[in-house]
């Protein structure tokens, strides 16, 4: 089939992002370090412009570039949230990077290219575009983790991330090649048609499926493919941790939906069992191991693993409502994670990373407002109403109850009780322990205001989850 340039306008946001990222690359090549604030402003502007274009072109749906590219309401919503999340990430991390001498043009260029990769991934309807987007994103992330090159722990994290990420990509690629071998197609829609015809060799198909699931699980950080996640989260500069904890999970969710639903929906029975295993193990391991952590970044990393387990619950239910629940969970998770790592960034200053849980002693006395924000975040992550995290858990658990997977639901609720323990411990440190040092928040006013709005949104979504939930349901049906 010859390649045709049909409907190029569907990829307008990506083209814009590419153009802006390249412009920025030229800009930093020809300006000195003193123009770094311009670089920052231009990056924010690029993300904003892209978000604007996404909003303006919303509603059109269809395939482009010989069916390798899809634009639908799912891709619109996810791309928009990725841009907005990354804007917040840059805002929160600006002062952190400045304090540590990490404020370099390359950071922003890499962020923009990674964002571009996420957007391509979200819109992929073909194995090649999917892989292209994934690798563009991942390579930028590897470089970002390694950015603090004098830090031993960051370099180690980057090495681990790179090697394990490369293995995951290899697995994914291997799985894709097997699926291609069976179905003779690379486009997801054609693969779905081929599987539906029932003429395929199921054994080989399942064999390929296993590798694809492993690849996806690696990117998500689902147990037992989670080993990289705690080390990377802890080792990377907090600004980078924030970046790679939030938006890439949204992109990974899109990848999961595209692959499992659009492409391999015909073998749902096969991947459902695999996802159940991944989800249950992630919830158990994530929550149990998080209990013993003393480093907040590492604790949040294990909490991420458990959130991934919960997130998978919706997808594995195999119903439209379940997919919507997972999407809701992903977006709420991104908001909570932004808040969680954002808090670390807010409190850290030169020579003080604020990443040990013990660093938060007495925050309730010294910074009552920010302690309250952290309290909301922790209770939300634990799934206590009336906060967004409760509805996220409610929807995914409802999804598995509705398909009669009661045992999975029981494990999920038990694990959320265990999870509550380590979130409560952070609250305990903040409110019940006496302060040992004066904690201050020195970041810029916009960052503080946006951080507070971000957390209050978590509360607001807990009180009125209806519209976001309805949006997810519309997108997924």
């Amino acid at each position, binding site marked *: 089939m010859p390649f045709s340039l049909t409907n190029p306008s569907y990829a307008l946001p990506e083209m814009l992002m590419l153009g802006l990222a390249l412009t920025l690359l030229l800009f930093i090549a020809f300006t000195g370090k003193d123009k770094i604030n311009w670089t920052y402003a231009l990056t924010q502007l690029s993300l904003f412009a892209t978000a604007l274009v996404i909003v303006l072109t919303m509603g059109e749906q269809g395939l482009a570039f010989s069916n390798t590219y899809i634009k639908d309401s799912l891709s619109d919503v996810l791309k928009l949230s990725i841009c907005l999340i990354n804007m917040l990430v840059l805002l929160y991390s600006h002062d952190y990077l400045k304090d540590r001498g990490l404020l370099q043009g390359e950071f922003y260029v890499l962020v923009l290219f990674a964002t571009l990769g996420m957007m391509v991934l979200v819109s992929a309807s073909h194995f090649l575009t999917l892989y292209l987007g994934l690798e563009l994103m991942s390579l930028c992330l590897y470089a970002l983790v390694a950015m603090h090159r004098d830090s031993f722990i960051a370099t180690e994290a980057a090495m681990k991330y790179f090697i394990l990420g490369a293995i995951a990509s290899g697995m994914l690629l291997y799985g894709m090649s097997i699926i291609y071998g069976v179905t003779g197609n690379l486009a997801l829609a054609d693969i779905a048609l081929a599987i539906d015809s029932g003429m395929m060799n199921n054994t080989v198909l399942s064999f390929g499926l296993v590798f694809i699931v492993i690849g996806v699980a690696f990117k998500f950080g689902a147990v037992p493919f989670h080993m990289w996640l705690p080390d990377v989260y802890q080792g990377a500069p907090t600004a980078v941790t924030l970046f790679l904890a939030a938006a890439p999970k949204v992109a990974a969710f899109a990848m999961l939906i595209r692959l499992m639903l659009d492409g391999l929906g015909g073998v749902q029975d096969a991947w459902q069992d695999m996802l159940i295993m991944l989800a249950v193990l992630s919830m158990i391991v994530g929550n149990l191991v998080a209990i013993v952590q003393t480093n907040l970044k590492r604790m949040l990393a294990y909490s991420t693993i458990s959130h991934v387990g919960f997130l998978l619950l919706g997808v594995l239910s195999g119903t439209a409502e379940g997919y919507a629940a997972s999407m809701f969970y992903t977006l709420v998770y991104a908001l909570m994670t932004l808040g969680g790592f954002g808090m670390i960034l807010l409190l850290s200053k030169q020579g003080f990373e604020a990443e040990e849980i013990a660093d938060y002693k007495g925050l309730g006395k010294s910074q009552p407002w920010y302690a309250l924000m952290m309290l909301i975040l922790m209770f939300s992550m634990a799934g*206590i*109403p009336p906060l967004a995290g*409760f509805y996220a858990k409610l929807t995914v658990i409802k999804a598995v109850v509705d398909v009669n997977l*009661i045992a999975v639901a029981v494990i999920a*609720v038990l694990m959320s*009780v265990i999870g509550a323990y380590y979130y*409560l411990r952070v609250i305990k440190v903040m409110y019940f322990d006496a302060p040992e040092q004066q904690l201050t928040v020195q970041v810029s006013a916009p960052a503080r205001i946006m951080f507070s709005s971000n957390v209050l949104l978590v509360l607001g979504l807990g009180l009125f989850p209806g519209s976001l*939930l*309805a949006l997810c349901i519309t997108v997924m049906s």
Partner: protein
Amino acid sequence: MTLTDLPMLSLLIWLPIVGGLILLMMPAEHRAIRPVGLLTSLLTFVVSLLLIIGFDSSTHEMQFVERLSWVRAFNIEYYLGIDGFSMPLIVLTTFSTLLVVIAAWEVIKDRLHYYLAAFLIMEGMMIGVFSALDAILFYVFFEAMLIPLFLVIGIWGGPNRVYATLKFFLYTFLGSVFLLLALLYLQFQTGSFAIVDYHAVPLTLNQQIWLFLAFLIAFAVKIPMWPVHTWLPDAHVEAPTGGSIILAAITLKIGGYGLLRFALPITPDASMTLDWLVIMLSLIAVVYIGFVALAQTDMKKLIAYSSIAHMGFVTLGLFIVFRIFANTNNGYGEVLAIEGAMVQMISHGFIAAAMFLSVGVLYDRMHSRDIYAYGGVANRMPIFTAFAVFFAMANAGLPGTSGFVGEFMVILAAFQANFWYAFLAATTLIIGAAYTLWMVKRVFFGEIANEQVAALQDVNRREFFMLASLAAIVLLIGVWPDPLLSVMHASVENLLTQLAQSKL
């Protein structure tokens, strides 16, 4: 326009919450903190009194109903309404919170505005629990309530507060997640989150048993029933006086209320099949925990154990109805059992609040809860001793106090179920008297034990007012329980018809 047209319940829920949020934003040590707290709780209490006036006790139908769509995608509603079970509990809540605010007046010195805010927000949530008719709305209030209580015990509690509050939170959270699963499963069966729809849905015995067990875990932890009671003594001992009052007066009642609202009407057949389990646990609570109370030397711990024993009467009253159904057919014993359980809940709310308040009065002066640190208090605090002895008598179930009414009704009903139930339950009259009066003897009577006791001052006007109002109510319900009974009568009859009908 009548009272019933106004959104009374929303007012009751949101008035204290808004007041609490205002307090949260006020600067510490502001002059207006105490007035704002008092005014909010007083206003809420007055509104709840209007509820009594507007309440029609001739019907079991839900009253003051408010119904709005909340989360349309899942058909979750903001659905409120009260009947004869919830109305008295709401008034108990508003009254107890008022007490807590007054009790904190001079006593809480550290971040008083947060303390009052926590209790006011909690008040709104507890009223929400008692008036929610949508399962998810109920669950939201039921869970959200844990947050302020967790902080109250953890911030203003005693030396071992962190352990106690974590244990309290995790225990109750563990129970309630099973409730959430049960509610979701019922939604899966009915397609709705309205509790009244749950009441009507037919369920097989097997389904009912699983649901019943989930409900039982959730509410047994709250009540608390033996053997999941261990969090309560810890929480009570470490909690500040206000926390103890709310714990004993309201949160324990939420467990009993949950059984009434969910377990009994939704799973009547499972309740009948497994009533032996609840009866057994209740009797263990009454007898065994009574003996445990006897051995305590910490006053708060003693009252905490006595609370567990008293709540045993509530669960006993609720679950002997099936035996009475089987034995007699006069339609009298069942009513006695359920109403006795309800009266016991209300009465225990007041008496336990009074007991914890009395311990608070002593603790504020001596900073000790150890019985042996006292002795001869009556010589120095005669007025206080009069009140304390009266409440101790009420706690022991002396006729003429509210403590007698509930226990007597349940024991009387138990005779129609099985003689031995009644016999074992009646032992509480001896054990209860033993542990309460023995404590009174050691603390209040005898020679003045030490110099600290010799230096004690009698109650001030604030404390006198609180103790006197509680004593008046305890006495009033004790000699004239009729108004309370008539409020709930229609709802009790309705519950009994629901219980008599098999859902199979």
